[in-house]
């Protein structure tokens, strides 16, 4: 039911989605993080921490996804991408 909205700076930033406990820690379900050329998911996590103190409690290597597919921390991120950080899965 969450709607993914894009801010004005989507040409220079990635949308970061946060779920469950991570959304509580950060205090938001969605934020924008600037991505420089050559960025990867780890850089986006660093950018998230820089702008959101609550993100300090995220683990160094959380599960992550880029554009709705599971990803690794060294996968590339380009402006306009949707990056997600995922707490330990608990489905089923």
């Amino acid at each position, binding site marked *: 039911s969450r709607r993914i909205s894009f801010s004005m700076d989507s040409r220079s930033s990635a949308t970061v989605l946060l779920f469950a406990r991570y959304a509580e820690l950060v205090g938001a379900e969605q934020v924008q993080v600037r991505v420089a050329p050559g960025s990867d998911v780890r850089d986006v996590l660093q950018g998230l921490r820089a702008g959101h103190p609550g993100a300090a409690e995220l683990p160094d290597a959380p599960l992550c996804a880029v554009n709705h*597919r599971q990803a690794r921390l060294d996968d590339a991120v380009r402006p306009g991408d949707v990056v997600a950080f*995922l707490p330990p*899965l608990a489905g089923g």
Partner: protein
Amino acid sequence: MRLLTQDPLDLAALIADVASPERGGTCAFLGAVRDHHADRAVLELEYSAYGPMAEAAMADIVAETERRWPVRVAVAHRLGRLAVGDAAVAVAAAGAHRDEAFAACRHVIEELKRRVPIWKRERYADGTEAWVDPTAAGAAR
């Protein structure tokens, strides 16, 4: 049946989805909300998902399973607030023989737990709540 739904799960509908005259064996799994978790009394819980990724992962699991065994499989996970005893996940796998039906059904539920981005927040009898972390020490399976 949709992969993710707020409505009660309908196992009969999943079984009907995979049935056909040449498939004589159907194995199904239902996962329901238990009244206890790691020795704490559970009153209810709420499931949430990263919808687009969860649906893609579930579709991948279905496709992979149907490539690996000669079966048809169907799976659905419920989201939102569930009470003790409510079914949270349902799987059905049908093949000509029971070996592949059991193997495929088991594979789907294992992969779903491993790969599908769904979370649950439990509310306990003592009034507290917590996000369930199956990777934490002492966590129940």
